[in-house]
């Protein structure tokens, strides 16, 4: 096989794994959208906030240390201990549950029955608030995150695929990042676990019931507010996983919230109401943008990754407005 072809495959594989990140963020959007009809603009910021909190806990940072030092003239920064990664992840998950409860109590509860646009505006407010709050709590520095996931290219894959090129080709085997692979694995486990939970437990059924029909759900005794807390908590866990993956790759930094906006074209592609759609949409966008950059980037000056996803989504909107997996929107007249 020719080296160019093999490199294209490598690009494709890497794109696929980059797409997993988009899928994860999009998944959080879909979960909340299905349960409460809220388009949660803050999903990306939730990933950032979760990652910041995780790093903060792991490093034993004192929350609000800037504020405390400015107010009292002290010099506190950290507690001087380190929390093991797993324990810190557990603690962060608890924080995300608290966050979900607060969102329900302070925002959703008061906006029951409001227009979707109002709820959307509320989540925009929430996003900006959380960004500022995260900054105030943990500071704005870029922080490395290492929860012990493997890093670097997989030598094993490289060595065992080198022969594909054959004699005399300049191909030295596929370069696949181990971090990308573990991200893919974790994402797969997460999606399977979520599916099992929603299919085979009473609460899972309640989640699906609320997504289908609020009135009927109420009539069998399901409390919408409890379900909202649960969905926002799950979305918080998904955000935490996404935050860990992004953070391990490029450090925990505030640009993470913007990258998460790529979930928007992913959702247009996959449909706002479909969990498989979020996954497949993310993979297609990830793959598409890497491959497009590889093939067309050199011809038109590069940096196509900034806009490719949006153009693809736009084209898609014209032909299939409900997305790949979304329910067809039929306006009753």
């Amino acid at each position, binding site marked *: 096989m020719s080296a160019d072809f093999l490199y294209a495959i490598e690009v494709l594989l890497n794109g696929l794994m980059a797409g997993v990140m988009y899928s994860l963020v999009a998944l959080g959007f879909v979960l909340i959208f299905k349960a409460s009809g809220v388009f949660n603009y803050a999903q990306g910021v939730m990933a950032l906030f979760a990652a910041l909190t995780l790093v903060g806990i792991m490093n034993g940072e004192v929350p609000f240390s800037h504020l405390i030092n400015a107010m009292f003239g002290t010099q506190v920064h950290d507690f001087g201990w380190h929390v093991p990664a797993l324990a810190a992840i557990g603690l962060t998950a608890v924080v995300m549950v608290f966050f979900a409860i607060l969102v329900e109590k302070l925002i959703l509860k008061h906006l029951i029955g409001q227009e979707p646009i109002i709820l959307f505006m509320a989540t925009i407010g929430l996003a900006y608030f959380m960004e500022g709050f995260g900054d105030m709590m943990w500071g704005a520095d870029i922080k490395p995150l290492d929860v012990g996931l493997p890093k670097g290219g997989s030598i094993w894959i490289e060595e065992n695929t080198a022969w594909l090129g054959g004699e005399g080709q300049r191909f030295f085997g596929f370069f696949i990042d181990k971090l990308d692979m573990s991200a893919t694995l974790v994402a797969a486990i997460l999606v399977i676990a979520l599916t*099992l*939970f929603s299919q*085979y*437990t*009473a*609460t*899972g*059924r*309640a989640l*699906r*019931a609320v*997504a*289908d*029909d609020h*009135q*009927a*759900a*109420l*009539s*069998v*005794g*399901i*409390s*919408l507010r409890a379900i909202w807390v*649960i969905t926002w908590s799950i979305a918080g866990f998904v955000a935490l996983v996404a935050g860990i993956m992004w953070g391990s790759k490029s450090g925990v930094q505030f640009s993470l919230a913007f990258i998460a906006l790529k979930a928007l074209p992913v959702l247009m592609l996959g449909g706002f109401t479909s969990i498989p759609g979020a996954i497949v949409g993310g993979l297609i966008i990830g793959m598409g943008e890497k491959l497009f950059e590889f093939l067309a980037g050199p011809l038109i000056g590069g940096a196509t990754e900034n806009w490719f996803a949006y153009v693809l989504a736009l084209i898609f909107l014209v032909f299939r407005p409900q997305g790949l997996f979304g329910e067809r929107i039929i306006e009753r007249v």
Partner: protein
Amino acid sequence: MTSTVTPDGRTIGDVLLEVKNITLRFGGVEAIKNISFDVREGEIRAIIGPNGAGKSSMLNVINGFYHPQEGEIFFHGRKRNAMKPSQIARQGIARTFQNIALFKGMNTLDNIMTGCFTHMKTSLLEQAIWWGRAEREEYVYREKVEHIIDFLEIQAIRKTPVGALPYGLQKRVELARALAAEPKLLLLDEPMAGMNVEEKEDMCRFILDVNAEFGTTTVLIEHDMGVVMDISDRVVVLDYGRKIGDGVPDEVRSNQEVIDAYLGVAHD
């Protein structure tokens, strides 16, 4: 204790539900005007009346979807404070809807399983890890649901997505879901509307069997006079939000105001 025995041998007990001087307004429209009636334990109580009479609104008041501006509701003899529909469901009031409200994304079995929601006690965490207790609970209720499925003769469609079912069967699945809650009080909003004669007969039989077998107190709205007179113990008649008749079928049938209302207003 004031229990009576019906001619067909069922026992009718104390007052289970009492609505007193209920008035419900939507803006300027008075959908329910100062209505009172009671429902006794074990009886089948019908609400009839022409279109727009306020029948569905009355059910919505009872199950908490609507909050009346005036009046009181007593359940089990105790005055009920304003409550959310989900809380009222937990007190043992289940219902079906005039326009079928099933969970379209689920199959028949899952739809009916949601009916057990109020009874399932294991915590979210136990369910999440499918821990022993949660698993056992799931099987216990699964068995109960299978019982209801047999009872309503819908074994053949257990795994069918409900959206794909014909109208009559969807109505039956909705009844099954309500029964899964093992309700003290069952509210049925036009359970036979839009059915053919054979389906209607089936549904009548099911309602009677449920009542006979489990003693379930039932309030049902129905337009078909023949059906109402056949299966109900007592009938409330509404017209333009007012109560114009209340009593056993024979009394209601000979009530002049009721006859006028039905002759004067077209209904389906």
